[in-house]
């Protein structure tokens, strides 16, 4: 029996935006990833009110706080809530938009003891 040919799916995001188009390089990253450029998405989420500034804000680690922020963003913008930087989320982030912050309830992060 012949081995099926390996197929590769290439997903691209519409390149709408010169400011945030590099977010496309982060497609499908999820918690635990450490990818150059995540700090830029953190800045985006801080700017528009989804992520509180913290001492991990400048790191490229996809940490817990970042996942919570991505989830908040997805929920508020009416996207599928995955907590990951999926195609739908990256596409939304790269759209041109108003510069005013999105109005959200105050950010609260609770320490959870495991």
């Amino acid at each position, binding site marked *: 029996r012949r081995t099926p040919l390996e197929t590769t799916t290439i997903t691209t995001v519409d390149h*709408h*935006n*010169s*400011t*945030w188009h590099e977010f496309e390089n982060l497609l499908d990253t999820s918690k635990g990833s450490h990818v150059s450029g995540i700090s830029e998405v953190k800045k985006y989420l801080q700017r*528009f009110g989804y992520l509180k500034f913290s001492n991990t804000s400048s790191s490229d680690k996809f940490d817990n706080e970042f996942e919570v922020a991505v989830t908040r963003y997805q929920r*508020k*913008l*009416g996207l599928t809530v995955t907590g990951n930087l999926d195609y739908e989320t990256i596409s*939304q982030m790269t*759209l*041109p*938009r*108003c*510069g*005013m*912050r*999105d*109005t959200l309830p105050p950010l609260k992060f609770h320490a959870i003891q495991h």
Partner: protein
Amino acid sequence: YNYFKGKPRWSRAIPTTLTYAFSPNYIVSNLKLSDIKVTFRQAFSRWSAVIPLNFTETEDYGFSDIKIGFYSGDHDDGEPFDGVLGVLAHGFSPESGKLHLDAAETWAVDFESEKSGVAIDLESVATHEIGHVLGLAHSFVKESVMYPSLKPREKKLDLKVDDIEGIQELYGSNPKFNMESLSQSDTSSSN
């Protein structure tokens, strides 16, 4: 719909008239000023149709309630623009009256004559930013004018029920306005 913190609004007695003016120094070159003025007049009229506020243009920029200008990059309000696309504009909460548009965008008043793939509809953005100037924050109803994003070559002009209910909670209803006169598509988002 949402409001800014403290739910600010223009505090003068209703009904009232707010004046607006265009900065004589910060305009864009790819559009005629007369076209920009017509576009903003239409955008203001969408809001005045539903609330008891009128808007009138004045040449006296310094004393106008609402000050409109096209700015590039850092323009000293703490919210620098970022070039083509990205952030398109911002309008500040009452009673600041500042309405700023990014001069780097390819602003369009007519997509028939403006063929650029990154053209942005001026009237859609003007209508959205006027909503901020009047006191509405971003809505997360996708069809609403106050939703935060807009694609290039997209138009979003008509106020939806979400926008109207939000602004009428601040200022009351224009006595001539009838919610039932809205088209099916305007009301579908609230359903």
